[in-house]
């Protein structure tokens, strides 16, 4: 069995006319790792995927698999399994023939093909569906066929291009976990592309957040969430309260509106900083207290989501455990946040 590989991209750039789809992207994916590339549409993530798969040639930079450059190699010779957004199953071939396709292309012997197709179909729990045509399958089943087809030939790398976009929420969650399980079990080096930050957090070892053709931050999921590198990452991943200000004293930030916050940061005095407070990190008390009027309140089952208008024009998004009655609009409440829970960047 072929070993899963390590992928390196260095300085990849690609322009389409005036637009830089990729503007010097470098990253590394370790053997067996699942890296998510997260970004809004137009951020360059799909172009990056195409560069890895070989459908686009970068203007500059290189791609290496296990230290061997593949930048100029045609897609057919890269040994990369890929699942497309709409699965791209061959509509005229049965499930069995779809999954056998990459093996046939590699001139694998007939009995071997039969064995490995059965194995792959069992892996995605589709045994018994061999003779169906793609259009006779549900979306989730088509997804599994696409997955089986992408892994049946033991690719060195698995690429998943927004594969869950077309599924409903429940099915999506099931499939996410299933893909995760499969990927771990096979130890497949995987790049997963999505614009859905929640999905990114569920699935990944590490996440690379992309915007405007560059990688904004590449880190573990907790790192990305708790300590985003900039406004974009903070804003794109999860709900957030972001303010800007200056370090007025060690451990103290003065926001643009004049309000001071106690924080934990070793940034030197006078530095311009950004401040991130996650809505769920607010409590009833703490070192930093805010009093505000509820201008919006939503009941979310396990929590309340409140929007508060505070003194100095500050507007806060706060999540509180759903205990007691839902605060009414117009009510004045007090919340606090601990300096530890404030991220300064």
């Amino acid at each position: 069995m072929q070993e899963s590989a390590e992928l390196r991209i260095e300085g990849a750039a690609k322009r389409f006319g005036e637009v830089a789809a990729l503007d010097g992207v470098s990253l590394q994916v370790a053997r067996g790792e699942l890296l998510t590339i997260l970004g809004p549409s137009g951020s360059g993530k799909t172009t990056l995927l195409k560069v890895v798969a070989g459908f686009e040639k970068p203007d500059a930079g290189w791609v290496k698999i296990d230290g061997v450059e593949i930048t100029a190699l045609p897609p057919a010779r890269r040994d990369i399994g890929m699942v497309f957004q709409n699965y791209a199953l061959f509509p005229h071939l049965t499930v069995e023939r779809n999954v056998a396709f990459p093996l046939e292309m590699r001139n694998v012997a007939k009995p071997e093909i039969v064995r490995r197709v059965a194995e792959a179909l069992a892996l995605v729990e589709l045994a018994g569906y061999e003779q169906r045509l793609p259009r006779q399958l549900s979306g989730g089943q088509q997804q599994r066929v696409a997955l089986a087809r992408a892994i049946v030939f033991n690719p060195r790398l698995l690429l998943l291009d927004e594969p869950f976009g077309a599924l409903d929420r429940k099915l999506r969650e099931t499939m996410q976990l299933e893909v995760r399980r499969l990927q771990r079990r096979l130890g497949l080096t995987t790049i997963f592309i999505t614009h859905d930050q929640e999905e990114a957090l569920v699935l990944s070892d590490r996440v690379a957040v992309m915007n405007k053709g560059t990688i904004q931050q590449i880190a573990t999921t907790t790192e990305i969430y708790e300590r985003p590198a900039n406004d974009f990452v903070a804003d794109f991943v999860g709900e957030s309260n972001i303010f800007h200000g200056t370090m007025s004293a060690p451990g103290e930030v003065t926001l643009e509106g004049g309000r001071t916050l106690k924080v934990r940061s070793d940034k030197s005095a006078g530095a311009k900083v950004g401040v991130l407070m996650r809505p769920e990190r607010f409590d009833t008390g703490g070192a930093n207290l805010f009093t505000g009027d509820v201008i919006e309140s939503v009941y979310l089952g396990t929590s309340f989501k409140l929007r508060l208008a505070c003194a100095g024009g500050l507007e806060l998004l706060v999540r509180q455990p759903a205990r007691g009655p839902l605060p009414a609009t117009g009510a004045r409440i007090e919340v606090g946040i601990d300096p530890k829970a404030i991220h300064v960047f």
Partner: protein
Amino acid sequence: MSMRGFWPAVPALLLLFFFFLFPVVRMLGFSLEGGSFDWYAKALGEGLYLRVFWNTFEIALLVTFFCLLLGYPLGFLMATTTPLWATVGFIFVLLPLWTSVLVRTYAWMVLLGRNGVFNRLLIDAGIVEDPLPLLHNFTGVMIGMVHVLLPYMVLPVYGAVRRLDPAIVAAAEGLGASSWRIFWRIYLPLTLNGIFAGAVIVFVLSLGFYITPALLGGGRVIMIAVLIEQQVRETLNWPFAAALSAVLLAFTFAVYALAQRFTRPQETA
């Protein structure tokens, strides 16, 4: 079909009724003049007419074959090239449809004649010594008919290739298929419907040709439409003309039905 869905089709159906069904029924009536099948017996019994029917089908089949041979790659290229080249392709492919049959035919005479452009080039280049007989024979008819019918093959093929999801081709490529195998395993089976549509149109249209074969075939290539036209305009034997037409129509429907069977979506096991 619900009645609500049926109403928008009414004008088209009326049109079909008055301009197709009604004349065909009248024609059938003509052919059974005096309640006898004598004219059918003549159409199907006499060697002359059977041979011309056979010739006609043979020519139509060959024309279809050559249209496919030329039209598939052409339609394929046009569907996969840049929009600019596709437009250029369209203009050249559609040009014969915008030219009158006589102009087109005389153009072929200028090109393919014994002293035509093509033969002179070949002789000057020393490739042949005597001019090739490209005109006033079967070859001439083939060239002329394929030329004018090519668009009917190219357009459905073009459409079929364009309808194909590019991701499917990319998927095949990513899964390790060479260009050759992508063509045989993906493009060809998935554009079969376009091929059949084009082939049926070309075949059926070929059956009715008579000016091109008369002019480019030197009079030797006789298709059934020539005889029908003779019966209508010269000998004024309308019942016989109707019988010949009805036989042609029946054959055509048979071919069409056969083609339909093949065009069923391929359920490859």
